[in-house]
C-alpha cells in the first residue's frame, strides 16, 4: 500500500482542521490520491458501535442524503453507526473520509478492511495522524475523534449511550465552534440517552436529511434512483408513511392487503431503488422527507 503524508502548514492541509486547538502535526493518507477532498464541505456522522437497526438505517439515510447533495461524509470506520455512515455515502456514489485511531497501515476493526478498500476505491480517503505500525489503543480513539470533528463543518450524533465516544466528538465540535446535530431517539432506550442529552443541551435536532444539509448550507437534491410507482410499491410506501416509517413484512402485508409473495416482490424493488432498507426483518423508509 502506498502511503502519503501532509504536514501542517503544507499545501493541502485542511484549513478547518488547522483551526482546532490541537491540530495534528501531520496527516497520513492511504493510497496515491489527491487530498483535495479534505478541503471540501464535509459532515461527520458518528455514533455507537452497538447500535439498533433504527440507528443503522438513520445513519445510512443521513449519509446517503448528505453525500448525494455533495457533502463529504467523515466518520471513524468503527463498527455500527460509523460503518453505516461510510456505506451510506458509498451507496449514494459520494465521497467519504475514514479517520483511523491507529497506524495508517492498520485495518481496525479487521472486519472493516474491505470497507476501507471500498472507500479508497470510490475516491474517498483513509487518514490518520499515526505513522505506519502504531497499534490501536483505547486512549487513541478520543484523539481520533478530535480529527473527525475538526475536519467537518458539522457533526451529527446518530445514536449514543450516555458515555459514548460519539459524545466526545460532539464536545470537540462544540469547542471548535462547529454545528452539532443529534438524532432524537426513544426516551426509554439507553441507546439514545446520549443523543437526547445533547438535544436537551441545545444541539440541533436532525430529523431529516434537510436538517443536516441546512447546517452545511447545501441545497437538498431529489433522491437518486427511480422509485417504482407500481400499485404494490405505492401501497407499501403509503403504509410505511402511515405507520412509524417502519414495519415488519407481516405488518405491511396486513396493512396493504398484499399477499406475502407480492409484498416480498414490492419490497425487493423498493430496496433496489434505495427507497427502503430492510434490516433484521424490519422495513424502514429511507426516502428523505
Amino acid at each position, binding site marked *: 500500500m502506498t502511503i502519503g503524508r501532509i504536514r501542517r502548514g503544507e499545501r493541502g492541509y485542511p484549513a478547518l482542521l488547522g483551526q482546532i486547538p490541537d491540530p495534528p502535526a501531520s496527516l497520513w493518507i492511504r493510497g496515491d490520491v489527491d487530498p483535495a477532498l479534505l478541503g471540501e464541505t464535509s459532515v461527520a456522522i458518528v455514533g455507537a458501535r452497538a447500535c439498533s437497526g433504527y440507528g443503522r438505517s438513520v445513519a445510512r439515510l443521513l449519509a446517503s442524503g448528505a453525500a448525494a447533495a455533495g457533502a463529504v461524509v467523515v466518520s471513524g470506520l468503527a463498527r455500527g453507526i460509523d460503518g453505516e455512515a461510510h456505506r451510506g455515502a458509498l451507496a449514494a456514489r459520494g465521497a467519504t473520509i475514514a479517520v483511523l485511531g491507529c497506524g495508517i497501515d492498520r485495518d481496525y476493526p479487521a472486519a472493516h478492511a474491505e470497507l476501507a478498500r471500498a472507500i479508497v476505491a470510490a475516491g474517498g480517503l483513509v487518514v490518520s495522524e499515526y505513522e505506519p505500525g502504531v497499534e490501536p489503543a483505547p486512549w487513541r480513539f478520543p484523539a481520533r475523534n478530535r480529527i473527525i470533528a475538526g475536519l467537518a463543518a458539522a457533526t451529527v450524533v446518530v445514536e449514543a449511550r450516555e458515555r459514548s465516544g460519539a459524545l466526545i466528538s460532539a464536545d470537540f465540535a462544540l469547542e471548535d465552534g462547529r454545528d452539532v446535530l443529534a438524532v432524537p431517539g426513544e426516551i426509554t432506550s439507553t441507546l439514545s440517552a446520549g443523543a437526547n442529552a445533547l438535544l436537551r443541551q441545545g444541539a440541533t435536532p436532525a430529523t431529516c436529511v434537510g436538517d443536516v444539509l441546512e447546517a452545511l448550507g447545501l441545497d437538498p437534491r431529489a433522491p437518486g434512483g427511480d422509485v417504482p410507482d407500481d400499485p404494490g410499491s405505492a401501497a407499501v410506501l403509503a403504509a410505511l408513511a402511515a405507520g412509524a416509517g417502519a414495519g415488519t*413484512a407481516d405488518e405491511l402485508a396486513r396493512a396493504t392487503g398484499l399477499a406475502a409473495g407480492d409484498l416480498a416482490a414490492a419490497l425487493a424493488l423498493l430496496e433496489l431503488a434505495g427507497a427502503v432498507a430492510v434490516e433484521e426483518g424490519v422495513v424502514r423508509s429511507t426516502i428523505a422527507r
Partner: protein
Amino acid sequence: MLGRAVTFALVGLEPRRVEVEAHLRSGQQPSFSIVGLADRACQEAKHRVRSGVHSALLKWPERVITVNLAPAALRKEGTGFDLAIALTLLAASEQVPAVRLAQHACIGQLGLDGRVRPVAGMLAAAEGAARAGIERVLCPAESAGEAALAGVEAIGVRHLAEAVGYLLGHDAIEPAAAGESRRAGAQLPDLGDVRGQERGRRALELAAAGAHNLLLAGPPGTGKTMLARRLPSILPALSPEGALEVTRIHSIAGTLPPGSGLVAEPPFRAPHHGASAAAVVGGGVVPRPGEVSLAHRGVLLLDELPEFPRSVLEALRQPLEDGVVSVARVGGRALFPARFRLVATMNLCPCGGRGDSRIECTCTPARVSAYRDRVSRALLDRFDLVVAMPRPRAEELASSSAEQSATVRERVREAASRLDHETPRRRPSASELLDRAVDRLPLSGRGRARVARVARTIAALAGSAEVLPEHVAEALSYRSPAELSRS
C-alpha cells in the same frame, strides 16, 4: 462333510453376497471356529448358534467345525449371519436338505432360545438377493414384509425349528406380502396452527416446492421452530423409488419400528446441537447413516444453528453440495445418499434481544459478530431462502383463518411436478432485473444462481410457464441479508 448357504453383508447401503461354508470333520476335541474376517458380534454367533440348535431340539454335531465366511477379504459385521451359519451346520450334518437350502438366502439373528430376531438392513439385503437371482429369502417373520418390498419371496420364520421344518418340507410357509406403507400424515403438526407469519409461511412453501434450504432468523419465541416443524406436513408423499430408498436407509440405521413396511412420507430429523459430527453426517467403524442420510428426501432441522459445533457445520457442506455422504473404509467406500431440505433457525444475537422491540439487546458488537461468525459464509451460502422473523410490534391480528397443511401441500405437489417436467425460462425483462440487482446489491455469483433458482420455484408455484420480473423480485427478498455476513 460340507454345507453351504448364502447370505448378504452390507457395505453402507450396498449388499455384498457372502457364502457361508461349514466343514465338519472328526477330531479328538470337538470345536467350533468361524473364519473369514468376522468381527466381535459375528464371532459371538458361535454361542447363539449352539444354543439355538439345542433349543430347537436339533442335534449339535460334536465334531471339529469350521465355518468360513467368503469372500474372506470382506469384513463381516453384525449378527445377521446367525441363521445362515446355523442352517449351514445343519445341512453339513444332514439335518436339512442342502439343495433346498441353496435356493434361499438366509438372513437373521438367533436368540439363545432359537428364536429368529430381526436385523437392520433387511430391505437392502433382500435386494441383494433379488439382484443375485435368488428368489427366496428366509428371514425373521417381523422383517418379512420389509424383505418382500425387494420383490423376493420372503419366507418369514419365528424360530430356527420353523425354518428347519420349512426346509424339510414339513411345513409350508406362505411368502409374506410387501409391508403396508405407513402414512404418518395425520399426526404431523399442521400449518393451520400458525397465526400470522405470512412471510415465514410463504418461504416454507417455497422451500417445500423447490427443495430449497431455509434459514429462519429472529429473536426467541417468534415461532421459528414451530414453523420449521411444519415443513414435513406440506411435502408431497415420496415417489415409489424414493420410498424404497428412504426405507432402505432407515432399515440399516435401525430406526424403523419392527413390522413396519414402506416409508411413504418424507422423513423429518431434528438432531440436537450436542450431536457429534459422526452422528450428524454418518460414519463410524461400522459405517452407519447419519442424520443427513436419515433425512434423505425429507427435512433436516437444525434448531439454533450457531450452537452446533463448527466441525459439524463444516462437515455438512459436502452432503449439501453433493447430496451424498461418502465414508471411506478399509473394505471400500460406503455411500449414503443425503439429499435433504435443510431448515435451520438462529437468533440474531447471543442474548436474543435483537429483532425484539420489547427487549434491549445487551450484546457487544464483538459478541454479536462472534455469534454470527459461527455460521461460516460458505454455509450461509447454501441457504436459498433466508427469512428474518422479528417480533411483531403489535399483537398479531387474528386475521383470516390460517391455511391448513393439506391445501398448501396440494399447491406444493403441483409446483414440484411442474418443476420436474419443465423448468420455467426467464423472460428477458426478468434477466435484466437480475442483472441490475447483481450490480446494485452485494450479491455473489453463487447468490445470483440462488436467486434464479428460487425465482423458478416462485414461477412454478404461480403456475407460470415463464419466470417474470416479479418472480425475480420476490426471490431477491429472500437472499441472505448483509447483516448476517457482517456486523
